């Protein structure tokens, strides 16, 4: 079994927000109740990150998003253990880490020793044909969890490019998609529901689903307001080492009343900081944007530049996307169609050109950003969001970009010194001279 490398630098971030702590505590508690439920015979699903979890919520089928589980394993410094199991079984331990960690978990002979009491054995695995490697890992995962049934959802690309997608996402989402694509995803959802009904013996309740959709709208309303508070206040009332945890863990409970209330609580806490003139980084001089997956095993990295340079990472996709991409209104006629546009387009908005670059630019402007750090996932073969276009779009509009190549899931490959130097170079040589002008 591989051993975790001992860290010589601080990896625990400064937690300034209660909301961040309550999200972790709630999630942990929820997780501890999960195992007994599963052992008592309830269904339990592993989902890929882009799966329409609202359907599972409406059917009260507990689930874990396996890429988010990767983040938990990384944060608990346990990833290396799982890569070790994969290596022992004849697999590579150095590629596709964001998606393969879960396979390592499936091979773990002592799953109860995993984070938060370990992942229970799933009965359902929902996969999506987004990446060939993911599909193969999901095949293996389904084989390892031999009681689980794998169900694959499919994708359909978008032939129409709509500018400023965020202006249409809430009210006019059907204009973002071709009619063929709208039909396709509605059918995918209906097929999924049929599968789940058959598998679990539970009937899908459209009224319950509407409640879930309403809760998501409420949750994301508060995220928009929180994002706006951070964007519009200098110095910012919160930074990403707080918000990524608070948002991502609550997103895991998306569609529940608790998540909506938690999002409201986050807003109120951030608002209070604004009202009391209590910024996250009082000496804030520089506002940074983090594009890419969160650095889960080392959230303290974001704090490192605060004291020394007054540089605060205030933006990440976790709050930004929750604010702009999830809300769907006017769905009374067909909430499934509305959900279809949500879960099909998130990937496009975040990873596909030109949607992604245009949105990053809009967010950089709104958040009064001075510089951008873009993390590209080192060993993800599907990695590629047309970074050339992202960098060009941002830099042509006055936002200097520093690109880091690293593995966000595997702490043992992280080089603190090199990465710190790269961000310092951005701050000292590209942002500060600009600010002095």
């Amino acid at each position, binding site marked *: 079994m591989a051993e975790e490398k001992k860290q010589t630098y601080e990896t625990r971030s400064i937690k300034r927000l209660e909301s961040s702590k309550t999200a972790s505590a709630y999630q942990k508690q929820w997780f501890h109740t999960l195992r007994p439920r599963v052992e008592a015979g309830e269904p339990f699903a592993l989902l890929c990150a882009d799966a329409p979890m609202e359907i599972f919520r409406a059917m009260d089928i507990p689930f874990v998003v396996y890429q988010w589980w990767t983040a938990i394993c990384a944060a608990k410094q346990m990833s290396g253990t799982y890569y070790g199991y994969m290596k022992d079984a004849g697999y590579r331990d150095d590629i596709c880490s964001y998606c393969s960690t879960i396979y390592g978990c499936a091979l773990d002979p002592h799953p109860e020793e995993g984070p938060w009491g370990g992942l229970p054995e799933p009965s359902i695995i929902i996969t999506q044909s987004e990446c060939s490697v993911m599909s193969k890992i999901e095949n293996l995962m389904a084989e390892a969890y031999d009681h689980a049934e794998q169900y694959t959802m499919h994708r359909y690309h978008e032939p129409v490019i709509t500018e400023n997608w965020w202006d249409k996402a809430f009210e006019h989402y059907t204009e973002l998609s071709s009619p063929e694509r709208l039909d396709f995803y509605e059918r995918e959802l209906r097929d999924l529901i049929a599968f789940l009904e058959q598998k679990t013996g539970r009937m899908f309740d459209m009224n319950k689903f509407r409640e879930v959709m309403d809760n998501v709208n409420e949750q994301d309303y508060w995220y928009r307001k929180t994002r706006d508070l951070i964007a519009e206040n200098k110095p910012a009332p919160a930074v990403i080492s707080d918000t990524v945890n608070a948002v991502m863990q609550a997103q895991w409970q998306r569609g529940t009343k608790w998540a909506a209330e938690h999002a409201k609580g986050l807003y109120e806490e951030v608002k209070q900081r604004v009202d009391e003139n209590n910024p996250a980084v009082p000496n804030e001089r520089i506002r940074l944007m983090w594009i890419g997956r969160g650095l889960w095993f080392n959230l303290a990295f974001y704090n490192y530049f605060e004291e020394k340079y007054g540089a605060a990472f205030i933006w990440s996709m976790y709050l930004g996307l929750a604010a702009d991409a999830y809300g769907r209104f006017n769905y009374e006629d067909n909430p499934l169609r509305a959900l279809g546009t949500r879960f099909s387009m998130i990937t496009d908005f975040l990873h596909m050109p030109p949607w992604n670059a245009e949105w990053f630019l809009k967010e950089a402007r709104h958040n009064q950003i001075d510089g951008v750090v873009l993390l590209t996932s080192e060993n993800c*073969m599907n990695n590629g969001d047309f970074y050339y276009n992202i960098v060009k779009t941002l830099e042509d509009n006055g936002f200097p970009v520093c690109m880091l190549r690293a593995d966000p899931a595997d702490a043992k490959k992280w080089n603190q010194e090199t990465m710190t130097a790269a961000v310092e170079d951005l701050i000292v040589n590209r942002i500060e001279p600009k600010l002095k002008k």
Partner: protein
Amino acid sequence: MAIRKEAAAGKAFAALKEAYGNRKAVLQDLRKKGAKTVLVAGYDVPDEAVLAAGMVPFRVTGYYGGPRESAEKYLEYSFGAIWKGLWESLAEDYAGLADYCVFCGSSDMFLKLYYYFRTLKRIEPERKLPEFFYIDYELVDKKLKTQERNEREINRFIAQLEAWSGNKVTEAGLKEAIGLCNEYRQALRAFTELRKKDNCRVNGSEALMVIGGSMFMDRKAAVEAVKAVTEEAAAWPVVEGTRVYYAGSPQETTEVYEIAEASGCCVVGEDHDMGDRMFDTDVRTDIAPVSALAERLITRMPSSEKGSIKERVKFAGEKLNETQAELFLTYMNKNDEAYVWDLPSIKRNVLEPNGIASCTIEGQTWPLTDPEGLKAKFAEMAKLGKEAK
């Protein structure tokens, strides 16, 4: 061993070699003649539909003429050698040589490149890029809804071809094109019979050249050339060497096969679309043409990238048996490594129970960073295969 003098001396082989080695010249010639050419970026585009529209399908392969500067500038490191080559061809080398280009999702990277090119056209409108189209198939799930989706996609593509060509694609035209393409595939299968164990007259490098060369020819001429080269090859000397089955990254030139075959191996089959996979099944002629074209998409041999592990295990057993290979090679370009997830299952279920050796070569680039090292690995592999036997 590589391309043997007996092969090179044949008239048909020389014609195929010429097309294989001078792909751009073929495209330039089509342009000069005013042919309506459709650049094909994907391994599942139905050439039959292009031909039925009175257009010419032309497979886009990578640029191998020198550094791929454009690809290095625009693409992320996650794009392996094949994809960087394809970018360089489309963005630079073939610029202005064709008006249309069709992608399909044989690999995730084709979709990604389609999105990138579509954006490149927006941000650099002065570039001489073709009009792009994407056929959005489902290629893994074998279900009725897959068949229906793929039929819809083929019909959408046909409508686009009609708009491009100004010609109506008729059922009769499609049937005729299917007949021609089936004849072409059958001719290639007859040729590759000469890679079989008891009468192995063709090595992997020669096979790649014949298969690839025929792709860049007029389809009728290709059928004749393949039939002619099959006759020539029957008289080529018997090939010796460790019989290797190749799985993994497509080989668009003979370079890697030549190194392997100069080191004591003989590649007797492969799972990529510059080789055996391109012609492994025909299109049915007893059902409606569009249905038949769609059906073939999910009855082909599972691709090394898209195929499920279960399918790949089954396929490996069948292919090793059919080709009587002594070694199973998995060859992967850097960042083109989906295949690595198949291998332990193939080993456990097929190779080890049958005493077949295997070898994995990873992290390869173009140009090859260490051809000498590769040669040594292949020599070792040749020995390993014989010992396992």
